């Protein structure tokens, strides 16, 4: 008995050891492969700030998903960011798409700039890899029949339509003080296409376009342009450009005491907390129609606090990229695979609800989410608030703005 018992114990130990050794690779194999997402953002060059914010937002979503157990239908597969820097240049954006393809990414999220997004999505289309456009508003991005391209946020066509509805409401409520406008835009794809839409639709709300003025990026001095605006005496100045030029132009308008009923932008690149914090007098009463979080949503407020606790500003790039990753993750959950065609099919059928945004459920038509919307914002000396539409509004608009002088 004793002898048998000893043998038996040895056998048990040996069997245990053998199963541990033999089972280890099996255990490793059981770990689901991480899903790589290529983040193609301009984290250097002229658009570096916006690109960095986008990258931050995407990484925020990836971390959140991984902390919650990864993609559950794929056995808890973790998401992994593969970082790309488009250096604010379209050709580099394309090169980064190619490089990240070699790294085996399952999808891309990017690109912030429309000018980069256009060729980058084209490059990704060769491999039929899903491309989630986080920011990049040109309608051309989703109107070329590319099956791999999806955009949650509204494009500039819808933004301009909605912006004018908001502007018209605000103007009517104030007794219609604005009758004329000057449009100022930067001269690349984003500014030009937005300005074209703006100029074409302003008459629809009873506003006359006095002139459309374009400028290069970078522009070092806006004195003459503001001089021209002052000589035209418009009621509204409508701006469409990127961050640096937006700040410089806003400052020059303020310094030169351009007395207008409103300074308004659609997707204004520099309309953010930084402007309010550093240039409160300049920013006060400026209005912008832009991507924004839902201020009445508790989760969005908590996310703002969490982002600010990390020393970052809660700019629109952060939650646009965050939601793009989340939307793709939702598609993965339903597709149960990161295989490209299946993920694209899942995205096409998406009814995901981005609760931190003032959106309805997702519905992609030709890659464009028709459930997305932007809101009208106004800056005070200390913060930015939603003033239209009423269902999301935190404050009443101040319009026309009090005279600067």
């Amino acid at each position: 008995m004793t002898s048998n018992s000893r043998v038996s114990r040895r056998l048990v130990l040996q069997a245990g050891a053998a199963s541990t050794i033999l089972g280890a690779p099996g255990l490793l194999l059981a770990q689901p492969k991480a899903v790589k997402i290529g983040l193609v953002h301009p984290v250097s060059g002229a658009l570096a700030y916006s690109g960095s914010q986008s990258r931050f937002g995407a990484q925020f979503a990836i971390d959140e998903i991984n902390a919650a157990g990864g993609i559950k239908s794929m056995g808890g597969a973790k998401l992994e960011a593969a970082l790309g820097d488009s250096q604010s240049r379209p050709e580099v954006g394309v090169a980064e798409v190619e490089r990240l393809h070699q790294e085996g990414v399952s999808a891309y999220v990017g690109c912030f700039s429309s000018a980069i997004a256009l060729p980058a999505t084209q490059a990704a289309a060769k491999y039929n890899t899903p491309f989630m456009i986080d920011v990049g508003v040109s309608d051309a991005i989703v109107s070329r029949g590319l099956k791999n391209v999806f955009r949650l946020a509204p494009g500039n066509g819808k933004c301009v339509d909605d912006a004018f509805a908001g502007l018209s409401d605000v103007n009517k409520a104030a007794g219609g003080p604005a009758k004329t406008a000057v449009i100022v835009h930067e001269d690349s794809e984003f500014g030009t296409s937005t300005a074209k839409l703006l100029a074409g639709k302003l008459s629809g709300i009873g506003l006359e376009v006095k002139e459309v003025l374009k400028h290069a990026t970078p522009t070092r001095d806006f004195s003459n342009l503001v001089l021209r605006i002052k000589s035209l005496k418009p009621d509204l100045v409508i701006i469409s450009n990127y961050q640096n030029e937006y700040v410089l132009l806003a400052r020059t308008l303020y310094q030169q005491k351009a007395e207008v009923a409103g300074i308004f932008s659609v997707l204004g690149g520099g309309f953010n907390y930084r402007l309010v914090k550093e240039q409160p007098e300049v920013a006060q009463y400026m209005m912008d129609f832009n991507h924004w979080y839902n201020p009445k949503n508790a989760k969005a407020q908590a996310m703002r606090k969490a982002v600010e606790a990390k020393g970052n500003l809660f700019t629109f790039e952060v939650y646009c990229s965050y939601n793009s990753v989340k939307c793709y993750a939702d598609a993965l959950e339903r597709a149960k695979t990161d295989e490209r065609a299946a993920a694209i099919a899942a995205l096409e059928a998406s009814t995901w609800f981005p609760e931190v945004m003032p959106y309805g459920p997702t519905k992609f038509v030709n890659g464009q989410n028709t459930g997305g919307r932007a809101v009208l914002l106004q800056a005070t000396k200390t913060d930015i608030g939603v003033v239209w539409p009423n269902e999301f509004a935190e404050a009443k608009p101040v319009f026309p703005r009090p005279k600067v002088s």
Partner: protein
Amino acid sequence: MDPSILFAATINGLLIGGIYTLVASGLTLIYGVLHIINFAHGSMLMLAMFGVYYLLTKLGVDPYLSLVVMVPAMYLLGYFLYKGVIGRLSNGKDENILLITLGLSIVIENVALMIFKGDTRTITVAYSDKMVELGSTLVPLPKLISFIAAMVLCAVLGLLIRHTDTGKAIRAVARERVGARLVGIDVDRVFAVAYGIGLATLGAAACLLMPIFYVSPSTGNVFIIVAFTVVVLGGMGSFLGAVVGGLIVGLTESFGGLFLGESLGQIGISLIFILILLFRPSGLFGARR
């Protein structure tokens, strides 16, 4: 066209020209006198502007008061950068200096991006929005101050190079490097001093620019090509040339913007640059070689 707009465009052109002069004055010393193509000029300016930004936002030091910190700090940075990196790695070869400064600019810009992020920062001081009426034109006071300072800075640099021993040594080294060494001038030290002075002017430029402009890691790129244009246009090594070149570029940009639009108007700078070099290859005030 309304004469008042033409007058205002002239004033704006001169003031923006003053800013270009400010940025180009150090470059004319480094590039024009010592023939060092300092590609790091823009990134050094950016670094100095961040210095001014943080001196104000963290310590409450006014940008103009920052001059007493930034000018010597940038001089020391330039001096030791030349001694420790540029001079040591270049082995006295100009083409090596070009590559080193280009490399430095890339490194500085990317490190700045890592530390400061790509965010655009501006400052507000009590006089930020103070305006001075010049005829019918409203001129921001900080812009007027930077214009006057640019003129004074160039005059001081010109006098320094012409009348001090250090200036004479710099000119000697610039004209005949081997000969200067033979008469006992420490050529490496002179290079380091000149590079330091060049960067010190950027320290001053940063203090004068911050109340007007914004800073981000790519801010240097906004000025660098214009600064090189001003130096070549005015004549390499001539501080009077830097002033005149800066004003010509400023006026060209201003009138180009007025008549051709802000987008197209900037080609005026390239056109006038080509025209002047066509007729005066050494620049307006450059010594013929």
